[in-house]
C-alpha cells in the first residue's frame, strides 16, 4: 500500500515538474519564477496571450490537441499537471 502511494506520489511530482517546464518555456520567464503553486492569478506574465502560449506549448510537447473546456478551465500549474497524459 505504502509502495503504491509512493509510486503515485512520484508520478504526480513528475507531472508537476513537466507542467512547470511548459509554463517556463511558454512564458519565457526564469525557471525560479514558476513553482507548483503558480497560477494565472499570481503570475504577471501569465496573461491571456501567455495562456495561449502555454496551451500551444502543451500541444507541441504532447502532440495532442486540447479541448476548449481544458483551455478555459486550466488556470494554474496544478490544473495543467492534471491534464498531462
Amino acid at each position, binding site marked *: 500500500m505504502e509502495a503504491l502511494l509512493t509510486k503515485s506520489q512520484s508520478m504526480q511530482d513528475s507531472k508537476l515538474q513537466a507542467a512547470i517546464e511548459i509554463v517556463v518555456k511558454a512564458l519565457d520567464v526564469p525557471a525560479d519564477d514558476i513553482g507548483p503553486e503558480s497560477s494565472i492569478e499570481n503570475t504577471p506574465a501569465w496573461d*491571456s*496571450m501567455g*495562456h*495561449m*502560449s502555454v*496551451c*500551444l*506549448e502543451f*500541444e*507541441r510537447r504532447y502532440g495532442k*490537441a*486540447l*479541448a*476548449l473546456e*481544458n*483551455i*478555459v478551465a486550466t488556470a494554474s500549474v496544478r490544473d495543467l499537471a492534471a491534464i498531462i497524459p
Partner: protein
Amino acid sequence: MKFLLLSNVNVQPLVSTLKPFEVVSGAYNSMLSELSIAGSRASAGDISHVLCIFDGDSLIGDAFYGAGDADQCRMFLAALEQFCSRHPDKIVVANSFCFSSSRWLSFADLTHADSIKSLEAALNQRLIAIAKEHSNLVIFDMELLFRRHGEDALISNALWYAGRIRYTARMFELLGGVIRGALAAHAQQSRKVLILDLDNTLWGGIVGEAGCHGIALGDDGAARCYRDFQRSLKALQRTGVLLVIASKNNEADVDEVFASNPSMILKREDFAAICANWRPKVENISEIARVLNLGTESFVFIDDNPVEREAVRKFMPEVAVPEFPERVENLPTWFLREVVPACFGKYAITAEDSAKTEQYRANAARKKLAQSFDLDGYLAELGIECNIRVNSGNDLVRAAQMTQKTNQFNLTTRRYTVADLARFVESNEHAVLMLDYRDRFGDEGSVGLAIVDLGQGQIDTFLASCRVIGRKVEDQLLDKAIQLCRGRGFNRIVGEYIPTRKNEIVASFYEDHGFKLVERHPNGSITYEKPIDAG
C-alpha cells in the same frame, strides 16, 4: 532587419518560430490599418519586412453564393498593393488565400459561379498579379501546406474559440519554415549544386557487380522508385540546379549505363560533371567546386551510405547533407517534399536556368586535377574495428557468395561453391580468411575474404566488398595472409592478378603493397612475389 507581423487573427505564436529573426507583432487585427494608414508602424524606417499572415475565412466573412462581395478581401488586396508600391524598399510577405474545407457547402461549389472555390481562385489571381507587378512582394502557397499536412492537423477549433488563434503549434512551425524558405528563395540564397551517388541512390544495386543491365531501374517495384527519383532530378535540373555525380565506381561501368541502359531518365548531358573513381568523396567534391568555380556552401550531397554522408558533414560542414530515406518507396516524395523546399527553393525560374547545366559542363571540361585530403585522419575518426577469422567454417555461404558476386576488388575472380570452401577449410593446405568489419556507424558483417594456399605460400583469392573500399582494411587481411605463410616457414609470398573487365581497381594492388612483378603470363595474368622474414 526587423519584421512586423500583421494579421486579422491572433498569430502571436509565429514570433517564436521565426527566430532568430527579430519579429514584433502589430496590434490584434491591425493588418488593414497598418497597410493603409500613412505613418503606421509598418511604414516606419526600422521595419525591413512586413509579414501579412492572414486567415482567409475570417476575412471573407459570409460572402458566397452571391451574398456579400468579399469586400474585406478586396480592401486587403488594394491596401497590400498600395503599400508595396509606396515602400519598394520593404519586403512584404503574404500567404495566398486558402479557405478551410468547412466553407465548402455542397457539390454545387465545384460549378457555382459565386462559390467559395471560385472566389478563392479570383482572389489568388489578383494576389499573383500584384506580386508580378511588385517584386518586393513575396507570396507563398498556403493551400500546399494544407494538402501536405491535412487541415485537421493544422487548424485548431479550441484555440480559435479560446483565443482567436486559428492554427495548431504544428502549423506555426510549418509557417515559420515556409516564410523563411520563401525569403531565402526570393533573396536567391538557394543552393546550386546537387552531388549524387549512383549505386543504391540513382538506381538499385551496384553496377560494378550487377552490370549495366542488372541494376534496378525500370517500371516495376523498387526499380520504378529510382526511375521516379530520376524524373524529379531532371525537373530540378531544368530549374537551374546543377547535377553532379560523385560515385565510387569504374568510369567505364558508369559510361556503359549511360550508353546502353534504356531505363535511365537522366542522360550524361544532364550532369555538369561526373566523378566516377575510387578517391574519397570529399576529395572529389573539392575538385568539383574547383572545376565548376562554385563554393561548396552552395552544394547538397545525397548518398545512401551513412559513412560517406558523415565524412562529408565532418570535412565540409557547409555542404547540406540530408539523411537518406530508409525505405526506397519514399525516395521520390522525400526528395520533392523535404530536400527541394529546404535546399533548392526558387522564387522565379528563367530561361537561363534551363540552360545552366550546358554552360557549366563546358567550363568543367576545361579543368582537371586532384587536391590533397587527410585520408588517415578520416579513417581514424571512423573507429574501424576488424576481426579476421581463419578457417572458422561457420559462414561459408557468405564466403561462397563473396567469391561469386565480387567483381571489382577481386584479384583473381575465382568462383567457389560452399562445398569447395568446405574442402579448403578442412584441408591442412589451405586457409580461408574472413574479415568482419564494424565502425561507429554499425556492423557491416563479413566484407573481405582471402584464400591462401599454404602448400605453395600463395594467395589464391583476395577480395573485398566495395562497401569498404578506400578504408585500407584490405591491408590487415594481407598482413594476416603473410603471417600464415611465414608460420609455415616460407620466406616469400606469391600473389596473382588476373585482369578482368571489372577489376581494374586492383591492378596495382600487389605493387602498392611491396610485391615485385615476377612474370607476365600469355593469358594476361601477372605473378608477384614479396619477400617475408621467416617465422
